[in-house]
C-alpha cells in the first residue's frame, strides 16, 4: 500500500501561555513563604535518679520566680518584666562588687521557675529578656576584644567569648504546685 502523504496538523499553542499563567497565578496565591522563627532553647536531659545537686553559691544564682498571676519575683523582690534585662546585665557583669550579685560572669547562673498557671506569653518575654541581656553582655565583650559584634565573630572567637560568658539559664524541675 502506498502511503498517503499526511500533512502534520499543527497544534495551536497560542493558549498555552494562558493556561500556564493560570496555574502560575494559582501557585503564586497559595504559596506561603513564611519562614518560621522562634526563640531557640536547648532542653536539658532528664535528671538521673541519684544525680547530685550541683553546689552553687547562692550569690551566683539569679533566682526568678513567676506565679500564676504572671507576677515575677527576682531575688525575692517583685519586678516588672521590662526591667529584667538591665538587672540581668548588672547581675552578670557584677565581678564581685555587690555582695548579693554574681562573683563573675563565668559562675553566673539564671534559675527560672514558673507556675503551671503562668501565661506562655510571660514566660517567652522573660526568656527573651534574659537572652537580650546575654547578647548585650557578649556583644560588649566581643567589641572590647575583637572590635566586632558577637554574631560577626568566627567560630573560634565565639568560643572564647561564650566560655567567658556562658549563657546558663536553668529551669527548675516542675513540681505540682499552684493553681491552674
Amino acid at each position, binding site marked *: 500500500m502506498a502511503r498517503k502523504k499526511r500533512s502534520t496538523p499543527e497544534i495551536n499553542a497560542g493558549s498555552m501561555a494562558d493556561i500556564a499563567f493560570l*496555574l502560575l497565578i494559582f501557585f503564586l496565591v497559595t504559596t506561603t513563604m513564611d519562614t*518560621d522563627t522562634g526563640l531557640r532553647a536547648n*532542653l536539658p536531659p532528664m535528671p538521673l535518679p541519684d544525680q547530685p545537686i550541683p553546689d552553687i553559691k547562692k550569690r551566683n544564682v539569679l533566682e526568678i520566680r513567676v506565679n500564676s498571676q504572671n507576677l515575677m519575683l527576682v531575688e525575692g523582690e517583685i519586678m516588672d518584666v521590662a526591667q529584667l534585662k538591665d538587672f540581668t546585665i548588672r547581675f552578670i557583669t557584677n565581678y564581685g562588687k555587690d555582695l548579693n550579685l554574681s562573683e563573675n560572669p563565668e559562675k553566673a547562673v539564671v534559675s527560672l521557675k514558673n507556675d503551671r498557671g503562668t*501565661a506562655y506569653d510571660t514566660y517567652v518575654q522573660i526568656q527573651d529578656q534574659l537572652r537580650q541581656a546575654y547578647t548585650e553582655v557578649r556583644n560588649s565583650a566581643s567589641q572590647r576584644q575583637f572590635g566586632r559584634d558577637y554574631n560577626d565573630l568566627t567560630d573560634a572567637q565565639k568560643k572564647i567569648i561564650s566560655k567567658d560568658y556562658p549563657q546558663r539559664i536553668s529551669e527548675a524541675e*516542675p513540681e505540682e504546685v499552684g493553681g491552674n
Partner: protein
Amino acid sequence: MAKFNKKRSQSSTSINTASLPDIVFMLLFFFMVTTTMREVTLKVKVNTPSAVEIEKLERKVATSYIYVGPPVDERLGSATRIQLNDQLAFPSEIPEFLESEKTQINPMELPKFAISLKADKEAKMGVVTDVKQELRKAEVYKLYYSSKKRQSGPQL
C-alpha cells in the same frame, strides 16, 4: 546639527512571544516546587508571642510542629489543649507522635530534628511544661518557642 532620523518604520513590529510560555513555565515550576500547602487545619487558636532574640529555624524539613492553645471549637471549653498533626491530643501521645515524625525525615537530618512549639500567648505554662517533659523523655532537646519578630522595646 544632529541629523534626526525622522522616518520611523511605520509598520508595527510584533514582539516574538514564542518563548513566553517557557518563561511562564519556568516560574510555574519554581512556585510549584517551593509551595507548601498548609499541612494541618488548626484546631487550637494560636497567636504566637513576639520576641526580640529570635532565630530562624535551622532546617525546616527536619522540624515538626506542636500546637498549644485554647480549642477553636468553643464547646470544648477554654482550657489549654495540645494539637498533634490534625487532632487534639494528650501529652501522653507525644512520644508516639515524635517517633512517627522521625521516621518521615531523612536519617541524615536526624541530628537536626527539632520541634517548633507554636503556642498561644494565653496558653498555660502547665501544658507547655508537660510537652517539654515529654520531649526530654523522648530525648528531643532542640526546641523553638515560635514567636514573631519584634523590634526592641517593652512588650505588652
